[in-house]
């Protein structure tokens, strides 16, 4: 099964430039974790099971999940917010943020899910 990665149409582009330049190492780890998450779903594992067994995946409610940069656990708390849509086999990349923007990013993700009729 192929799970396509799709950048959400309300993705905050100005945010990613800031993080991209500042956190190259943690971002590389986060993207490696995204590759593992994508490969896990592609192997037929349901998003719920993937979330339970992959330690870098965090539950953010309403179907939203966040992938962190671990390892390392300490230091920058980078998070990539995703919505895995089982019906369309797509992983929507909703936002990239750190601990300081966590609250807004989660609200942003929930809004995206509702607007797209998944909420």
């Amino acid at each position: 099964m192929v799970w396509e990665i799709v950048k959400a149409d309300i993705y905050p582009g100005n945010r990613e430039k800031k993080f991209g330049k500042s956190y190259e190492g943690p971002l590389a780890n986060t993207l490696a974790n995204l590759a593992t998450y994508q490969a896990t779903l592609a192997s037929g594992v349901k998003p719920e099971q993937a979330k339970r067994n992959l330690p870098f995946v965090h539950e953010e409610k309403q179907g939203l999940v966040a992938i962190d940069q671990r390892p390392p656990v300490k230091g920058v708390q980078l998070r990539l917010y995703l919505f895995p849509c089982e019906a369309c086999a797509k992983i929507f990349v909703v936002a990239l943020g750190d601990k300081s923007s966590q609250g807004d990013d989660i609200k942003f993700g929930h809004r995206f899910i509702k607007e797209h009729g998944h909420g």
Partner: protein
Amino acid sequence: MAEALNTISDLAKGLGFGEKSLHAIEKHVQDRSTSRMLAVLRAKADLSQKEMATKMGVSQSAVSKLENATNDCISFAEAGRYFAALGYEMTVHVSRPKTIVERIKGAYIHLTKLVEDFQGCRRNDPDILLGMAKFETEAAKNMINLASMLIDSSSSKLAQVEVLTEPRILVDDQELDYSSASREHALV
């Protein structure tokens, strides 16, 4: 419009990195292909890292370390133990690149050996004998389909070279007399 991305690298490209950084990120992701496979198999088995550690008789941090290691930092022994804990066998296949003809010949030899091994599993139990016979019948049908595919294909090629009135079969570069072969090998 939502933007479809073919790879993780496509996502990284939109993050304002220079070529050098992009290359480093791509390499970082590629260098974890083995550890990624380990994590995927564990998640597929519905095991947490802690449960996996218990199965392997190691600490959770050892499992985590293995699942985040680069390809050059995972030994055959470590990967073998990990796979064994999940109920998998690890086979390391080393060979020179082979042509498709060599691969087909190799597959035939391998298949013949497997069939011999299978036949060695025969037991004097009616259920086992029935199950084996059913499988052999199904396998034979598949082989007949394959043989038919090969004969049709070779016949059509030969037909382009010369006009044939009936299928021509070459065995070890020797032409087989189709009519006499049919008589000799006719099923009774």
